[in-house]
């Protein structure tokens, strides 16, 4: 491709001159003849420099030099030649760009070419230049040939040298122009060859000259040059001075870039316009604007700078801005003619922010927009499903993108929509075997014109992008986008066809980043925790341990503090021990009715896998107290203490500490470390645990339990280095967040037992009688166990398993016993499900057990049956019916106040938190508060809206049935009420978190987040909608 150059109209009539064309047809003034002759020599050198520069050379009109827009490129050279023929070379990266700049084309240019005396030389020169330009303008010129030529063109010792001269910062171009002017004025006496000012090099210019003295001479008298120091550029580095970095110029419109700085850091942007001169680009972004802040600012109100608050990116709705009384102007961009809305110095169009930024503040390399980002960029108005700018995506294709056998479809050109299979891949061309019969066997198409093609039902693997590694089946093909049902999560994934390959393999994608793996329980910053339910290339999806609602957060690796590996236990609603792998059923809350094995336990919160639950990888987060254990524990037998404990959970209703008297005295001081969780398992004794003394002279002291004898406990006080003996009743566990289950349990018992003295009906008194019946078992079994292991529990349980329970295997869940084919398992397991009536038949065979009369009675009766059961051999029978009784227990609330474990079941407001030190504070529920609007749904009646007037300790509320709050008063249970979801600009009350109880106004809704202006502080907060309740007017 030749560059078309124009002569200035005043200089001749030849409109277009090709480089190399004979130029001296134009009359040359006689007085310049000498100068021209001198030029011949220079011309040759010049041509060589040109060749070395490899880039297209353009010639410019001197008259244009003052116009700053004229220097649109990286650098210019100034050749000091004779007066009229001064010239500036523009070095550009490729010919194509010049083509774009039609405007510049129109400027007056005059080629300065070396002139030779005779015609042959001209011809030779023409050929030479032609060859050169033809070569460089072709995209696919022969690389090797050029290399050799290029080598030859490198500067040698004979060539003029390049000197680096210091000049005033910011005046580099000016200096170069001055030198050119000087050259024009003085003429050949100025013995320098060229001047180079580089845009990226501040403070210096380069001068090409043979001798240092020439440089100094030329610089003399120029005020912006400090020529005391002139540095020689080594020959090797000369080429580097003039090599053009490609990065600046490959930015074109419609390209995707990412912001490097500011509040938009990392955001995807689309280039709208590029201004190479000012090094600025206009990009289109999804705005992150806090309208409230803008409004405040415009109204001159004091804006409290909040750090690290980055408004979420969303499309701007100008109406919203208007609503906030922000003055919105409508402007027309003079250059494009498009209309923009603008306020606060920002321009918006179609909801996008148009922002002009410096080239340096964006990164344009290796941008791989994720699917979601592109989706967001789709103009909401144009409904066509084509994802724009596929070309940029294709540009990111890896090598070897297509492989033999891939099904492809042609997306461009005459053969558009032709399907075929890849046969062979050359560098850029792909040979495809078309599906159509009449076509030739193979067709070569450009790689950019085809994309992969999949059919619904294909099993594919994602090979790049955020979902990398995932596999699944294609269910839908939307142009270039595939919808895949992931094999593992059964969720939809949207991916680009380009990013997947056909595969029969089944994986869940990457499952590990760093130390953290899929399904790990991790501790996050601010002490929250959760289970990793999905791993993406850079982040984890973590289902947080918040039981009220599924809360999934995207967590970066660095935000994870540690993995929680400790095996904790928890207590279910009936205070059975729940350990990992036990099957539990959820009795209340949003996931009511689901059941599944427990995967993780932490701070009284269970993570359960329900295989029918499709969201969150099957994980459900629930409070332990909202669940009930089904069947026995799944825990392996080898996890002795715990598994047994949980397997026979119903037997454990007796408080642990009551067993302590039965501790074998011969054991001496117990060796086992008790509460110190050895091997991650807390053992049963309270020995070794940290306690707090509740009453007596040492009330309030903390200490470590040294020994337990009967009811007295020896405690080593932390503060006094002293061992005291006290009644265990006056001790309670000190609260500690990392309390293990067993401590937890002990603490329960201690707490419980305190009131026991006053209320003999409770546990202690009534259960004491059963001790004798158990004690005999003790010596019988204990030797079987590791004496180091806690004898208390084991002693009491082991016999039961062996003698009474195992033959019936009633507690083992059915699934475990599948292989045995034992029908008994099937028959009995339902009995454990709460409320299952078939339990009844078992009542009959129980001889003389008084409990049968009170099957659904008070929960604290749990221990009672044991009293009357004469031996352990039939111990199982009382328990079976007992289980169904539990959930029905009407008086369950009665024991709650003393039971830390019971707290979450009691929707009685914050008051109970005090009593549940063992449960972390964030477990505080989302309970109702006075003044909020609720939807009351009594069974069998139409839902009515009412206002909560009063909350009773058990969680039920007095509600007046009228939105204005003056209707009938009724009492509603918490499960009959639902908070009314507030709408925009409603008054709301915050129901959870540290702002609980505050009122405010909902000023906006963003997905599941509400933007709330808190009344007292006037802060604007973004809070989950789930914790916002509409306030009665």
């Amino acid at each position, binding site marked *: 491709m030749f560059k078309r150059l124009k002569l200035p109209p005043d200089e001749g009539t030849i409109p277009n001159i090709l480089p190399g064309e004979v130029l001296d047809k134009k009359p040359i003034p006689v007085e310049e003849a000498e100068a021209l002759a001198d030029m011949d020599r220079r011309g040759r050198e010049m041509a060589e420099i040109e060749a070395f520069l490899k880039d297209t050379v353009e010639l410019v009109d001197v008259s244009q030099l003052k116009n700053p827009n004229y220097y649109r490129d990286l650098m210019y050279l100034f050749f000091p030649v004779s007066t009229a023929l001064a010239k500036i070379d523009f070095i550009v990266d490729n010919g194509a760009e010049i083509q774009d700049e039609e405007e510049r084309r129109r400027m007056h240019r005059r080629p300065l070419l070396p002139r030779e005396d005779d015609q042959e030389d001209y011809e030779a020169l023409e050929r030479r230049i032609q060859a050169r330009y033809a070569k460089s303008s072709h995209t696919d010129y022969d690389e090797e040939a050029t290399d050799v030529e290029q080598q030859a063109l490198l500067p040698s010792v004979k060539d003029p040298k390049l000197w680096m001269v210091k000049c005033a910062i910011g005046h580099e171009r000016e200096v170069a122009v001055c030198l050119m002017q000087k050259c024009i004025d003085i003429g050949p006496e100025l013995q320098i060859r060229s001047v180079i000012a580089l845009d990226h090099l501040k403070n210096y210019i380069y001068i090409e000259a043979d001798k240092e003295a020439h440089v100094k001479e030329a610089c003399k008298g120029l005020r912006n040059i400090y020529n005391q120091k002139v540095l020689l550029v080594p020959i090797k580095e000369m080429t580097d001075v003039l090599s053009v970095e490609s990065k600046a110029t490959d930015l074109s419109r419609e390209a995707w870039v990412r912001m490097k700085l500011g509040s938009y850091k990392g955001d995807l942007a689309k280039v709208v316009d590029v201004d190479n001169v000012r090094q600025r680009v206009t990009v289109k972004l999804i705005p992150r604007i806090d309208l409230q802040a803008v409004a405040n600012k415009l109204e001159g109100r004091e804006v409290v700078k909040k750090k690290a608050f980055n408004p979420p990116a969303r499309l701007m709705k100008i109406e919203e801005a208007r609503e906030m009384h922000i003055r919105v102007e409508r402007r027309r961009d003079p250059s494009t003619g498009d209309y923009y809305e603008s306020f606060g110095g920002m321009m918006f169009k179609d909801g996008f922010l148009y922002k002009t930024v410096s080239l340096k503040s964006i990164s344009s390399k290796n941008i791989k927009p994720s699917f979601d980002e592109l989706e967001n960029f789709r103009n909401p108005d144009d409904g066509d499903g084509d994802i724009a700018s596929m070309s940029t995506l294709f540009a990111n294709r890896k090598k070897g993108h297509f492989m033999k056998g891939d099904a492809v479809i042609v997306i461009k050109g005459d053969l558009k929509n032709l399907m075929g299979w890849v046969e062979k891949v050359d560098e850029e061309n792909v040979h495809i075997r078309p599906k159509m019969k009449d076509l030739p066997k193979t067709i070569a198409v450009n790689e950019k014109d085809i994309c992969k093609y999949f059919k619904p*039902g294909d099993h594919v693997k994602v090979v790049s992008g955020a979902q990398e590694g995932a596999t699944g089946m294609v269910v839908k093909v939307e142009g270039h986008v595939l919808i895949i049902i992931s094999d593992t999560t059964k969720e939809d994934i949207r991916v680009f066809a380009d990013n997947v390959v056909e595969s029969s393999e089944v994986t869940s994608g990457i499952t590990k980043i760093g130390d953290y793996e899929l399904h790990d329980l991790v501790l996050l910053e601010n002490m929250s925790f959760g289970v990793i339910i999905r791993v993406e290339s850079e982040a984890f999806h973590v289902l947080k341990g918040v039981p009220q609602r599924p809360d999934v957060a995207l967590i970066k690796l660095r935000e994870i503090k540690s993995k929680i590996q400790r095996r904790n236990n928890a207590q279910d609603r009936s205070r059975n021990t729940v350990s990992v792998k036990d099957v539990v059923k959820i009795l209340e809350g949003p996931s009511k009715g689901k059941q599944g094995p427990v995967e993780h336990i932490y701070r009284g919160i269970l993570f359960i896998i329900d295989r029918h639950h499709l969201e969150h990888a099957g994980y459900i987060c629930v409070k332990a107290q909202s669940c009930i254990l089904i069947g026995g524990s799944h825990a392996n037998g080898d996890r002795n203490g715990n598994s047994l404990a949980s397997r026979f959970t119903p037997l454990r209703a007796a408080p642990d500490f009551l067993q302590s008297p039965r501790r074998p005295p011969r054991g001496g001081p117990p060796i086992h470390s008790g509460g110190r969780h050895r091997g991650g398992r807390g053992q049963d004794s309270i020995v070794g645990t940290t306690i707090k003394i509740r009453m007596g002279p040492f009330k309030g002291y903390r200490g470590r339990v040294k020994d337990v004898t009967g009811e007295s406990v020896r405690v080593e006080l932390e503060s006094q280095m002293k061992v005291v003996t006290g009644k265990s009743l006056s001790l309670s566990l000190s609260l500690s967040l990392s309390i293990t289950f067993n401590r937890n349990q002990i603490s329960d018992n201690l707490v419980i037992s305190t009131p026991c003295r006053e209320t003999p009906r409770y546990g202690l008194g009534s259960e004491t009688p059963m001790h004798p019946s158990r004690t005999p078992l003790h010596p019988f079994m204990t030797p079987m166990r590791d004496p180091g292991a806690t004898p208390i529990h084991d002693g009491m349980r082991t016999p039961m398993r062996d003698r009474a329970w195992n033959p019936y295997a009633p507690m083992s869940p059915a699934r475990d016993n599948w292989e045995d084919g034992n029908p008994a398992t099937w028959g009995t397991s339902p009995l454990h499900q709460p409320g299952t009536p078939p339990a009844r038949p078992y009542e009959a065979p129980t001889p003389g057990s008084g409990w049968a009369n009170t099957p659904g009675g008070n929960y604290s009766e749990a221990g009672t049956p044991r009293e009357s059961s004469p031996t352990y051999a039939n111990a199982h029978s009382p328990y079976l019916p007992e289980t169904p009784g539990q959930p029905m227990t009407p008086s369950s609330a009665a024991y709650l106040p003393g039971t830390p474990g019971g707290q979450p079941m009691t929707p009685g407001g914050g008051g109970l938190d005090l009593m549940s030190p063992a449960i972390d504070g964030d477990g505080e529920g989302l309970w109702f508060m006075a003044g909020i609007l609720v939807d009351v749904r009594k069974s069998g009646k139409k839902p009515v809206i009412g206002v909560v007037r009063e909350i009773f300790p058990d969680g039920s509320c007095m509600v007046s049935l009228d939105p204005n709050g003056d209707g009938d008063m009724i009492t509603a249970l918490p499960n009959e009420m639902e908070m009314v979801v507030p709408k925009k600009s409603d008054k709301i009350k915050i129901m959870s978190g540290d702002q609980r109880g505050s009122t405010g106004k909902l000023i906006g809704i963003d997905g599941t987040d509400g933007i709330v202006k808190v009344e007292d502080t006037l802060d604007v907060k973004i809070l989950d909608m789930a914790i916002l309740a509409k306030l009665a007017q």
Partner: protein
Amino acid sequence: MFFHIVLERNMLLHPRHFGPHLRDKLVAKLMKDVEGTCSGRHGFVVAITGVESVGKGMIRDGTGFVSFPVKYQCVVFRPFKGEVLEAVVTMVNKMGFFAEAGPVQIFVSNHLIPDDMEFQSGDIPNYTTSDGAIKIQKDTEVRLKLIGTRLDATEIFCIGTIKEDYLGVINDPGAAV
């Protein structure tokens, strides 16, 4: 599709079963072991219809177990891509619904449900046409076409569509009530 084929298996039998009922024990164990299993190649073994031959038992060194090569006829069920099946819906959610055709679980994504059917959440999540005439909820019987199958060693999972002619609800027990 169902097939009646002959398969072979090496049965390991504990020596305690040796005696006059050895063959019965062997067949009983075979049934217990094989029925209901799934192999990627043959699909689900639905039922054993007969035992063709029981080969000579070989005593395994060290264990005392005896392995018998047993040839048996059985009915297998193997889903194929493109096959039209009738299935019962087991679960409905916003991503689609799961249905079971015998032992095979089939997922019908919401992309493969006709566009006029929309997901309705609630107590009984379902997909309903805009006029409410057709409803897909749990226990609805649907006719669907498999568009993809994934055969693992132990599991067969299929993806089906009802977005074609003559596919969809064939009997809705919920509607009858």
